[in-house]
């Protein structure tokens, strides 16, 4: 076996985790800290390999709590920095996520889900207080590389964390990608970053989630700081929605899916269209802010909206909020994992997805769905 060093600009066959690390470095990320956990582990491995040669640092943190803390410190100096994990690791990081958001630090989080059951965790978070993260959900490796660079841009643009949502397939399958630094336009300077140079002048800086300022400096105070955060989040909701739609204009049935499963749904819907079935799809690329408007428009006059996700039903709540009664919304996915619980199960199969879409396309929201396939290997 030969290994090929990823170099910017040249197309290489690479695993998603390598593509993500390569794209992050191309975007100027110079600090990463993480703790191994399948299927995120290789993301950490690739950062460990790629950061030192460009003068960056990757710390094999002693826990996820420490990993996110280290990223917090690196971000405070103005560096582009990131961390990541799976759902369990992210559960541990939640206290810091809340506070990093309130401190308005541009953290990027690479999240590789086990199974597909962490939509709520990613979009709602398990932390305290009024906070939100932008969430980008690539459907494949090429898009993961693109959205990784966008994540660093958006984080700096809004001074708000951005989470890139992948899964076992994002991290572990291979695709030929070429990664070049992308210029998304200017981002604000970071006069708030700490370096010690203004110490003793009365203008030293404080990076704080508490809305504090230094004594004698203008301060919003906690309440106005929190309100300003809400105003910023409202702006993000207006400005940053990203969504792809296909064949929705005359569709009678619309399927909503995100991430890796959406790639399968797109494929199946395109096939069914070729056979003359009036089906379409909506693929949210940003899970927050969520494309509620698009769903509102698309669902007008539609017979059924189906939601395909690999869990008991999480994103379906957002779909219902967007559709708002214009059409019945029904879940056509379900829990499906491999034997280890890390990967994806037999539900992620074009024939099976096709049967389920066809069932609601023919029979509407009340149609009986074929039984969920069972992972025979246990």
């Amino acid at each position, binding site marked *: 076996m030969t290994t090929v060093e990823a170099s910017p600009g040249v197309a290489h066959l690479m695993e998603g985790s390598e593509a993500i690390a390569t794209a992050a470095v191309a975007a100027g990320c*110079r*600090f990463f*800290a993480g703790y191994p956990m399948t299927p995120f582990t290789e993301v950490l491995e690739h950062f460990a390999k790629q950061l030192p040669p460009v003068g960056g*640092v990757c*710390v094999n*943190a*002693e*826990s996820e*709590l*420490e*990993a996110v*803390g*280290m*990223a*917090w*410190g*690196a*971000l*405070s*100096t103005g*560096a582009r*920095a990131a961390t990541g994990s799976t759902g369990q690791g992210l559960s541990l990081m939640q*206290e*810091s996520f809340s*506070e990093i958001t309130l*401190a308005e630090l541009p953290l990027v989080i690479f999240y590789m889900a086990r199974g597909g059951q962490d939509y709520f965790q990613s979009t709602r978070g398990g932390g305290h207080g009024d906070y939100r993260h932008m969430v980008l959900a690539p459907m494949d490796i090429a898009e993961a590389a693109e959205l990784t660079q966008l994540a660093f841009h958006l984080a700096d643009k809004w001074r708000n964390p951005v989470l890139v949502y992948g899964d076992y397939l994002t991290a572990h399958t291979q695709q030929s990608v070429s990664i070049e630094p992308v210029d998304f336009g200017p981002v604000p300077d970071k006069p708030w970053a*700490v*370096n*010690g*140079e*203004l*110490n*003793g*002048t*009365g203008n*030293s*800086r*404080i*990076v*704080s*989630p*508490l809305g*504090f*300022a*230094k*004594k*004698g400096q203008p301060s919003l105070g906690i309440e106005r700081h929190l309100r300003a955060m809400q105003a910023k989040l409202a702006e993000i909701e207006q400005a940053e929605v990203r969504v792809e739609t296909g064949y929705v204009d005359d569709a009678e049935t619309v399927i909503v899916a995100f991430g890796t499963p959406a790639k399968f749904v797109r494929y199946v819907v395109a096939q069914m269209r070729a056979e003359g079935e009036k089906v379409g799809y909506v693929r949210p690329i940003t899970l927050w802010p969520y494309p509620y408007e698009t769903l509102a428009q698309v669902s007008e006059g539609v017979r059924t909206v189906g939601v395909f996700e690999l869990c008991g039903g999480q994103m379906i709540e957002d779909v219902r909020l967007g559709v708002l009664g214009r059409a019945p919304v029904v879940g056509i996915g379900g829990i499906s994992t491999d034997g280890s619980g890390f990967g994806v199960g037999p539900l992620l199969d074009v024939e099976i997805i096709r049967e389920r879409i066809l069932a609601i396309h023919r029979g509407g929201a009340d149609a009986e769905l074929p039984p969920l396939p069972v992972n025979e290997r246990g």
Partner: protein
Amino acid sequence: MTVTQPQPQPVGPVLDTSVAPPGAKKIADLKPDLLLTQEHAMCPGCGEPIALRVYLEALQELGLAQRTIGVAGIGCYTAFSGTMDVDLVQALHGRAPSVATGVKRMKPEAIVFTLQGDGDMVNEGLQEILHTAARGENVTCILLNNGVFGETGGHMTATTVLGQRTKNSLDGRDAEYHGYPMLIGDLIAQIQGASYVARGSVHNAGAVARTKRMFKRAFESQMHNEGFSFVEVLTMCPTGWFIPTGDGPDYLQDTLAEVHVIGELKVDGVVHNTEQLVAENTRKAEEAAANKARDLAAKTGA
């Protein structure tokens, strides 16, 4: 039915801190250059502002003022985040050492310190401080150890000494029921990545001067990239100890400092154990007493 009204209790003398006590001498400027105000919002008799002053003076005197970045935890000392004229990152309760790690890795030329209390560091964040020491992270971690959660109102921490009364050890910390106190400085001294470890105090002028020397050595060790340095400072918390304000220094000496013994716990890779520190402290006390007697004798011509 008769209801007995509680009788108003006589209020004891309150320590007036707005005027200097008679005979007090001014020994330094009202505030160090790296403080934005000479005021603080702490309780009268609190030891934490003294520790703050001492390390800020040490940084200034070493010429490190414009290269320093602080990371603060959550406790009463969090109030200093807004009054230190030093770039600062406000971390969560327990999490300052990893935040400091990220800062230092991106700014290796900066002098990075953390400020934590015993509750913050030894309870909530024990894993962080130990790993940061083990990594030999080139930062200086400062512990303000008052043996209680001061900020929440005087609760037991991992460093509370046996017999000490707190709001959740009402009859005193009992080893069988509450477990034993942790001697965090001693523990860190054992870790290979730690280069300099010391425990000072602010309960009298001599201890304050000694603590300032400790801070200087710790910051110098960081300047020379020697690895992790650690200064623990015993501080008075009359409020959390439920004692009269003026009794703080003596209480500190007789309870906290009996267990968390003051001295340099590791210098140039050599660890000093409790017996050695006690012997050293006894020798110093005897020397001081002898000097005092000699001075007195010289003055009186005896």
